[in-house]
């Protein structure tokens, strides 16, 4: 079998050359992108952690204020006493366990990743629905993004963005963004042709057809895309911790390295609580709701 391995096809070399090329020629782009993403995460952290209160008497109270706000939001979204109560108690338990700071970091990462995924994913989904050839190009890429082991693209993310929150965010977005793209496209192409024709018959422009017919029709699917994005992002916290992102993944990784069962369990529980809250609050109402 020597003949088969005597000449190794330079696939790995090729990938490396590509990343090298990106690093040198795209440096300014990645720096700019990195700065923008870092700034948005910093803003979220600023709001969630309230560093301006440091050293004042209100420092201890700030987490409670945030918990009240999040619970109120849960009530606004769901109008359910159960969900609101669970949200409040779950977050209080996290504070009690001493993981509030990590939780806010994870929340900031998840929110930023979801926002990026949705703002980029929805337009891409619309484009894919409009032009079959765009979708033909996109499809294998989306498949690749979802199947390639996350660790593989953590390496170039590290090289391009350095250590910290941003590469974690990028890795999370790569993993999550296929969901909103696919679901947005699905929602739009499943708009009944008769509705589109009716709009055209009343003189709608293509933009009006999109805005007044297709997007509203696709809205349940787009919202399902949002829920999925949030959950997929949350499932990346531990992996994001490996490239230096702060959050609940850090104690998990540390517990793993020091074989610390107690710590691992606490951090894991916090992730589960956060997952349940986000799922309950953002979950689209059960299928069949929209006729």
């Amino acid at each position, binding site marked *: 079998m020597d003949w088969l391995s005597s000449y190794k096809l330079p696939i790995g070399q090729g990938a490396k050359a590509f990343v090298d090329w990106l690093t040198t020629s795209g440096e300014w782009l990645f720096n700019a992108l990195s700065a923008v993403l870092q700034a948005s995460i910093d803003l979220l952290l600023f709001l969630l952690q309230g560093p301006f209160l440091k050293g004042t008497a209100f420092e201890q109270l700030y987490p409670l204020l945030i918990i009240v706000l999040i619970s109120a939001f849960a009530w606004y979204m769901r109008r359910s006493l159960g969900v609101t109560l669970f949200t409040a108690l779950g977050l209080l338990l996290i504070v009690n366990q001493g993981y509030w700071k990590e939780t806010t970091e994870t929340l900031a990462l998840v929110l930023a990743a979801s926002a990026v995924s949705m703002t980029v994913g929805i337009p891409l989904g619309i484009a894919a629905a409009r032009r079959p050839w765009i979708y033909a190009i996109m499809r294998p890429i989306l498949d690749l993004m979802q199947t390639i082991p996350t660790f593989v693209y953590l390496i170039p993310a590290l090289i391009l963005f350095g250590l910290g929150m941003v590469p974690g965010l990028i890795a999370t977005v790569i993993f999550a963004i296929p969901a909103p793209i696919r679901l947005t496209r699905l929602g739009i192409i499943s708009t*009944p042709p*008769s*509705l589109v*024709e*009716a*709009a*055209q*018959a*009343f*003189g*709608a*422009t293509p933009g*009006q057809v999109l805005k*007044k*017919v297709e997007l*509203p*029709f696709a*809205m349940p699917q787009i919202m399902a895309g949002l829920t999925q994005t949030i959950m997929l992002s949350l499932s990346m916290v531990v992996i994001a911790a490996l490239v230096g992102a702060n959050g609940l993944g850090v104690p998990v990784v540390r517990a793993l390295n020091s074989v610390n069962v107690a710590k691992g369990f606490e951090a894991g529980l916090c992730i589960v609580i956060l997952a349940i809250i986000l799922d309950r609050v953002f979950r689209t109402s059960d299928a069949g709701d*929209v*006729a």
Partner: protein
Amino acid sequence: MTAAVTFNNVSIIFGKDPDAALKLVDQGKSRDEIGHETGMVLGVADASLTIEEGEILVLMGLSGSGKSTLLRAVNGLAPVVRGDVAVATKAGPINPYKTSAKSLRDFRMHVVSMVFQQFALLPWRTVAENVGFGLELANVPEEERSRRVAEQLELVNLTKWANRKVNELSGGMQQRVGLARAFATGAPILLMDEPFSALDPLIRTRLQDELLEFQRRLKKTILFVSHDLDEAFRIGNRIAIMEGGRIIQCGTPQEIVKNPANQYVADFVANMNPINMLTAGDVMETGIAASASETPVSGNAAPTTPLVDILDALARKPGNIGVVDNGAIIGTINAQNIIEGLTRHRRKDG
């Protein structure tokens, strides 16, 4: 009378290479043959037809005969590849295929509007928001819009339902929303593609009556697609019968019943129920029948009295009905005359 819509040798073909298909159209080939040889789908072949202002013209034919396609040529939604469409507007005739994108949108907002078989309402909107859809697209200011929507809701009797979601309504009510949406733009020309086919028979008749009632008041020009001859006869001033993309015959219901152009039309006519289109004048025996002196006269009628009223009268009181015009008896009707009248369209000799 003035023409509202004129089709002049309109051909409609679905596919990438219409010229190849047109050649075969000119050789008189059928849709199947054309599809077989070129892979194109023949929608409509060389249709010429004039729709007069204020009339209801019904397009009739079996499924796939090209009715919906021809209807969509009026507002530029079907791919017309040859021939002319002219639609009268205040600013002169417009051909939707030869006008700018902007003026086509304007034309669709103000000149023609459309009612659909499956209603095509936006389910996430309320009744009022659906009725105002066309006005919203035309950027009519909020205030005027809600005024005009309220007017239309009043007309179709749905004021109480204004703020409900459309899918809370029954099929018949949903189609009244569809009608109100079409009326709301004030367009003088109405395209109706089997608007009542999805409704159950009782509701269908009721909406047909309502449509005729609106028409008496609003005097629109209506192009109406149906595959039900009874419906066509009930509401159509004229009927155009289509087969395989071609118009076979066009005329008033009476003309079509008297003189079916070919076997296809005759088959349609043979299967219809003429009871609603016949009048006393159609079935009477002219002059004073010999038998009339023996059986009692049970009532009088005018020549235009609907046959159903005569049937009711005879059911209450058997005998002869005298048909009176200008004070003189011009004919009589007995049970035998009615049976002959009801079955005349089935006999070849007419």
